C-alpha cells in the first residue's frame, strides 16, 4: 500500500450539554493510506458522523492529533480548515446538498471558484468532471430537473473536480433506490481504481462490503478494523 494519508491519534470529541459531558469519540486511533477504500460503519450514536466531520475538517477534535496529508489539522482556524476542505476533501452527502437554484455545471464549478481558478479553466474542469460521471448532456439542468442518481453523480463530480486527496461519502446511497445505488457504488469502485482514496460512511452492510477495509465504531471507540479478503 501507499503512504499514510490520514493519521488520527487518540482523538476525542466531547460535547458539553449543560452539566453533562457526552463523549462522541473516546480516543480513536486510525490510519488510512493513499488509494485505500475504507468503510466506516456503526449504529447511530456510535460516533461515525462525528468522526466523518473531523476527517472532513468540518469539525475539530477536543483532544488528540489529526494529520491529513502531512498537515496537522487539529489547531487550524476556520479559514485554514475551509481551504483544506476545498483542496483536500471531496464531500458526497446522503441528501446530495447541491445548490437548488444553480445548474449542474455551476454546482460542480463552485469548489473551483473558492480555490480561485479562472473562469475559463473552471468551466473546462467542471465539464470534464461531469463528462466523467456520465452527465455531459445534463450540464445546464438544475437539480430539480435531474433524477436522484443524476443528482448524486453531480455531487460526485463536484467532489472530484478539485482533485482532492479524499472522497468522503456520507451514506451516498441512502436516498437512492437499490439499482441507482449500485450504479453509484460502481462509480466509486471506478474512482478508486483510478487512484482516488475513498472513505465511505454507512450503516448498511451491503454498501460497506464494496469497500476494501471496514472500520466499525461503537460508543465512540473502534470496535473492529479489518481488511476484506478477496
Amino acid at each position, binding site marked *: 500500500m501507499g503512504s499514510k494519508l490520514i493519521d488520527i491519534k487518540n482523538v476525542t470529541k466531547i460535547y458539553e450539554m449543560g452539566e453533562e459531558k457526552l463523549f462522541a469519540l473516546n480516543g480513536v486511533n486510525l490510519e488510512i493510506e493513499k488509494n485505500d477504500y475504507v468503510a466506516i460503519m456503526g449504529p447511530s450514536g456510535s460516533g461515525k458522523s462525528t468522526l466523518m466531520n473531523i476527517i*472532513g475538517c*468540518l469539525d475539530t477534535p477536543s483532544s488528540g492529533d489529526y494529520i491529513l496529508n502531512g498537515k496537522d489539522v487539529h489547531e487550524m482556524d476556520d479559514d485554514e480548515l475551509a481551504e483544506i476542505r476545498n483542496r483536500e476533501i471531496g464531500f458526497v452527502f446522503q441528501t446530495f*446538498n447541491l445548490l437548488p437554484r444553480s445548474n449542474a455545471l455551476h454546482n460542480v464549478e463552485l469548489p473551483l*471558484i473558492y*480555490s480561485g481558478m479562472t473562469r475559463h479553466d473552471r468551466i473546462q474542469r467542471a465539464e470534464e468532471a461531469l463528462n466523467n460521471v456520465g452527465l455531459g448532456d445534463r450540464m445546464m439542468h438544475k437539480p430539480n430537473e435531474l433524477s436522484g442518481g443524476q443528482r448524486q453523480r453531480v455531487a460526485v463530480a463536484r467532489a472530484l473536480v478539485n482533485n482532492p486527496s479524499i472522497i468522503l461519502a456520507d451514506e451516498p446511497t441512502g436516498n437512492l433506490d437499490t439499482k441507482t445505488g449500485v450504479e453509484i457504488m460502481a462509480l466509486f469502485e471506478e474512482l478508486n481504481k483510478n487512484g482516488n482514496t475513498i472513505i465511505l460512511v454507512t450503516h448498511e452492510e451491503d454498501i460497506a462490503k464494496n469497500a476494501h477495509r471496514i472500520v466499525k465504531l461503537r460508543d465512540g471507540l473502534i470496535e473492529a478494523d479489518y481488511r476484506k479478503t478477496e
Partner: protein
Amino acid sequence: MNLFVEIKESFLISVKAIISHKMRSVLAALGIVIGITAVTLMQTAIEGINRAFESSISSVGADILYVQKFEWFGKEDFEFYRNRRDITLQHYEYVKKFSQTAASVAPSVGSSRPLQYGSLSMDNVFIIGTTDEYQKTTSLNVDEGRFFTSKESEGSYPVCLIGMDVKNGFFSNINPIGKIMKVGTHSFRVIGVIEKQGSMLGLFSLDNRVIIPITVFYKLFGTRRSVTINIKAADMNNLDETKEEIKSIMRKARKIPIGGRDDFGINEQAAFKDTYNQLTSLIKIIGILITSLSLVVGSVGITNIMFVSVKERTKEIGIRKAIGARRRTILIQFLIESSLICLSGGLIGLMISFPISLIIDAFVLPTAMPLWVVALGLFISLLFGVMSGFFPAYNAAKLDPVESLRYE
C-alpha cells in the same frame, strides 16, 4: 483567492440570489426607494429655494456697497436709530471725491408716483433719481435706447428710463423711445428701457420703475429724502478694504468723534446672505433629518429581510462552507447582496425623484437636482446597504458548517 476575484464571484452569486427572490428583494428595496426619493426631493426643494434667493439677491450686486441711513439687519436699539441724520448729496460728493478704492459712486433717492401716457395710467411706480454713474453701480442693462449722459444728469434734463413693466403697460406694441410721458404731473422723454430684472424674493417687481436724473428729482419732488450712496468696489476681492475706507470717509464727513458709534449703515449682499442662511439652515437640517428617518426605516427593513434570507439559506451556507468557502467569502456574499438591494433601491428612488424634480422645476419653482445629490443618494444607499447587511452577513459567516448542513 484574491479579494477582487472574490468580490466578482460574490457579485454574480448575489445577483442570482436577488433575481431568484424577486418579490422579497423588491419589498426589501421599497423602504430605500421611498427614503432616497424623499431625501433627494427634499434636497431639490432646498436647491430651488436657494436658487430663487440667489437670483433675487443678484440684483443687489455682490461687489456693491450701499451707504444708507440704516443697516438692513440692524441689532441696535430703536432709540439709537430714531435720531439718525439723513444722508445727503453732500455726503455722496464727499465719498466720490475722497474714495480711492471705489470704481464708481452714484447717489440714489426714490419715491412712488403715478405715471400717465395718453389715456393710460399706472399707480405707485417707483421713481429713482440718480446720476449717469448709476448703471455702473448696478447690474442694470439697457435693453433699448441708452442711459442718460452726465450732461443730461447734471443739466436737469427731463429724460427717463423705464422698467419692463412700464414698457408693457404703456408701449406694448410701439417703440417707447422718444415718447413723452408724465411722472406725477411733469413731462419726461423716454430715452431707454431697462432689461427685465424679475422680482425680489418673488415679493415685489423690480421692473415697475422709472429712472430719472437726481437733479430733476430734487427739483420736482424735493430734497428731503435720505440718499443711498451706491458704491462699486474697484476690486471685488478687496471689498472689505473699500468698506473700511468708505466708513472712515463717512465718519469724517459726518464729524463723528473718535470712539463714537457710526450713525449710518454700509450694507452689502453678504449681510442678506448671512441673514438668509441663518434663517434657513435650521429648517434645512430638520428637513433632511426627517426625510432621513425614512431611510433608516428602510434600512431596518433590509436588515430584517437579510436575517430571514440568511436563516432560510442556512443549508446553502453549510454547503458552501463544506466545499471551501471561507468566512470572508460568505460575509462578502451577503454584504454585496444587501448593498445591491439598497443600491438598486437608491437608483429606483432617483428614477422616481428626478422626473418629479423636473415637474417642480416646470410648475412650482425653478430648481434642478444637483449632481452631488445624485452621487450622495447613491452613496447613502450603498452605505445603508453595507450597514443593514453587516450583522446578518456576520451571522452567516460564523455559522458552524456541521450544524448548518444538518439544517432543514
